[in-house]
């Protein structure tokens, strides 16, 4: 293979060609020959490097400089400056356009991007982009330099733990699957990222699908599988499409299929789409769904490593876990283990949502505190409001109050605090949030998503929801809190899968940390955050109201009465608490009590 010190990629999209990209390229070729540099600098054609509105344009590597607005006449100057004198020709450098990515902004000082490193940077539908970022190097290393045992050893040494939430050591899982008797074996990727508010995996699948595919091929080599499945939820149609394109491209390059890269290892992959069932994120339910059954979980053991998909030994990891693998192999276990805390190594992606300044995806090393996440990475609470709670771990996670803000984030610390890592949703709530309403909300979700197979989850979540709805409606009874605690303990103890076992967590954690709010609802019939409609009253303040009649005219149920230029009155029995009067009042004369 011939080595060049520099590569020039000239954009030859139709728009650039129209503006003279071919002339620029010819001039470049001639000038490099004239200067005696043609053996050192390679000129290649490419597409989509800027958007062509400032074409003709080109990129020069290894510097990664983007030149645009070029004509053939500029080339002599450019070659002399850049390739002879080694100076960047500033006058042609493109100002990188700042485009707003609402999901993933530039990393803040405390972030490290490992899993998200390529997202938004490479073209996910072009495998060469991934290869240019050292993609599939790890696969080559594994296939030709390591035995399966060495691969597992490296993953064990890295300390990588399952990013789906449970945090089981990935290397251990692979070891079990490898040791398991039975054939064929399967490798499965859990891309059924169903936790509301969590979309880290979607972004990886849509932005860097090959990192997941490469991770899966390596896993398959390690455990001895020849067939793999990616189970992706139907709510993510773009991810499914991107994955299918990526798989086709990998197959065309011999990275999937028979005798990968000419080795004697064969492996192929298929994408399976769900059909809208949250419980399918549970691994045994997921496998049932791939088999074409109802996605209901089954008891473990036997674990999937022993008896998984089609009752064969299977290894199942989530998207983020697989996406870490190529980096671990390529950069070494020590590098990976250098990040994080004693028991939680590496980085974790989170989706920040709710009342925080910068919502969207972040990736941080384990060990950062919740305070650092909310204030340094997330920019603090929106609209200058006060922090109230942070919910970690998705709908089966817990709500932690301000006193837990200095908790370092890792698997053990969150579990000890009464919450959990989960897949990585972080919902930040400000002072205007009613914690009883939040608990009711999550219970509504899990109750709805319960598959109905086991009684504690099916009936228990329904009973809890009924009580919470009653409390929010102002009909709570003093003994409700004890009943809630009893039900929560029972469901947690007796449910079949993670959904049921985790379902009570939002209630348990809010009961523990925000008990006073429950008591206010039940005993004083008052919602301190002024959210629960039956417990609030809209009132017009005498003296501020000018009697302009705007509120009365806008009230959909005619609950407001009063003469022009006199203070108006809201009839609480007629009022439906829609809040329209408050929105339309020009004098801020309406308050909630």
């Amino acid at each position, binding site marked *: 293979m011939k080595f060049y010190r520099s590569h020039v990629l000239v954009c030859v999209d139709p728009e650039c060609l129209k503006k003279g990209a071919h002339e620029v390229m010819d001039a470049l070729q001639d000038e490099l020959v004239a200067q005696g540099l043609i053996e050192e600098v390679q000129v290649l054609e490419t597409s989509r490097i800027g958007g062509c509105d400032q074409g003709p344009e080109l990129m020069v590597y290894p510097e990664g400089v983007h030149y645009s607005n070029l004509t053939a006449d500029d080339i002599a100057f450019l070659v002399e400056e850049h390739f002879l004198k080694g100076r960047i020709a500033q006058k042609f450098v493109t100002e990188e356009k700042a485009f707003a990515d609402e999901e993933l902004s530039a990393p803040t000082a405390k972030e490290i991007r490992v899993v998200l490193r390529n997202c938004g940077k490479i073209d996910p539908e072009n495998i060469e982009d991934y290869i240019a970022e050292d993609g599939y190097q790890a696969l080559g290393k594994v296939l030709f330099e390591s035995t399966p045992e060495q691969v597992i050893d490296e993953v064990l040494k890295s300390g990588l733990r399952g990013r789906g939430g449970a945090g089981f050591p990935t290397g251990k899982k692979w070891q079990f699957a490898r040791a398991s008797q039975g054939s064929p074996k399967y490798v499965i990727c859990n891309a059924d990222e169903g936790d509301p508010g969590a*979309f880290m995996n979607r972004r990886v699948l849509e932005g860097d699908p090959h990192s997941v595919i490469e991770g899966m091929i390596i896993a398959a080599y390690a455990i001895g599988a020849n067939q793999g499945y990616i189970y992706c939820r139907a709510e993510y149609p773009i991810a499914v499409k991107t994955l299918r394109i990526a798989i086709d491209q990998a197959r065309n390059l011999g990275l999937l299929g028979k005798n990968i890269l000419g080795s004697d290892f064969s492996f192929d992959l298929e994408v399976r789409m769900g059909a809208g*069932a949250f419980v399918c994120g549970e691994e045994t339910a997921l496998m049932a769904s791939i088999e*074409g059954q109802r996605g209901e979980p089954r008891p473990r053991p036997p674990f999937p490593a022993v008896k998984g998909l089609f009752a064969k030994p299977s290894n199942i990891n989530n998207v983020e876990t697989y996406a870490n693998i190529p980096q671990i192999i390529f950069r070494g276990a020590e590098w990976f283990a250098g990040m994080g805390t004693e028991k939680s190594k590496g980085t974790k992606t989170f989706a920040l949502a709710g009342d925080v300044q910068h919502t969207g995806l972040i990736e941080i090393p384990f060990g950062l505190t919740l305070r650092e996440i909310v204030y340094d990475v997330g920019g603090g609470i929106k609209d200058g409001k006060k922090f109230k709670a942070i919910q970690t771990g998705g709908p089966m996670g817990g709500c932690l109050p301000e006193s837990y803000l200095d908790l370092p984030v890792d698997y053990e610390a969150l579990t000890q605090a009464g919450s959990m890592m989960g897949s990585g949703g972080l919902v930040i709530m400000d002072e205007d949030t009613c914690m009883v309403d939040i608990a009711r909300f999550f219970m509504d979700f899990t109750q709805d998503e319960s598959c109905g197979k086991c009684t504690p989850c099916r009936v228990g979540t329904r009973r809890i929801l009924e009580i919470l709805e009653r409390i929010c409606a102002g009909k709570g009874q003093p003994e409700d809190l004890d009943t809630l605690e009893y039900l929560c303990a029972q469901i947690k103890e007796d449910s079949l899968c993670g959904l049921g076992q985790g379902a009570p967590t939002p209630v348990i954690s809010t009961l523990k940390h925000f008990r006073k709010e429950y008591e206010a609802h039940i005993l004083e019939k008052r919602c301190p955050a002024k959210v629960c409609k039956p417990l609030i009253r809209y009132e017009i303040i005498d003296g501020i109201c000018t009697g302009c009649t705007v509120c009365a005219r806008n009230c959909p149920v005619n609950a407001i009465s009063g003469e022009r230029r006199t203070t108006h009155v809201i009839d609480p029995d007629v009022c439906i608490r829609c809040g329209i009067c408050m929105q339309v009042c020009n004098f801020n004369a309406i308050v909630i009590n």
Partner: protein
Amino acid sequence: MQGNDKDGALVKEAVHAAVEHFGSSQDELIPILNEINRTIGYIPGEAFDELSSLLRVPRSQLFSVASFYRMLSTKPRGKHVIQFCESAPCHVVGGREVWQAIKDFLKIEEDETTPDGHWTLVTTSCLGLCSVGPVMVVDDDIYGNVDPAQVANILEKYR
């Protein structure tokens, strides 16, 4: 009656096309059902009959699978399906008010279809578009950062 025959033929065609595409095996059942649901808008009773004989799987078992998954409908749906994200991130940034506005506009509740068969209103689990919540989806079009005042404008486009 003619209309029914034609519908029956359409259903048959959709089922055969799906089975042909994915292969007649039980583990392809969910992709097959998804495809039928997509072409017809829901999975009618005749589709189960047809599928049962093609896959050699009892009708009851097929129905049991189809009724398990939220995205597979065994009831006819309206011309336009509105999916509203009911997840926490959308809920806390004003989703509740938007949901109310949609229901007020259509005068139907969740999982209902308007009497004229024009609209079906359903909720969806998280679409992962949380950074632009509240999110509603009409057919395949996604609307983010929706506020209650926009609901009527958005829906009018599908009249």
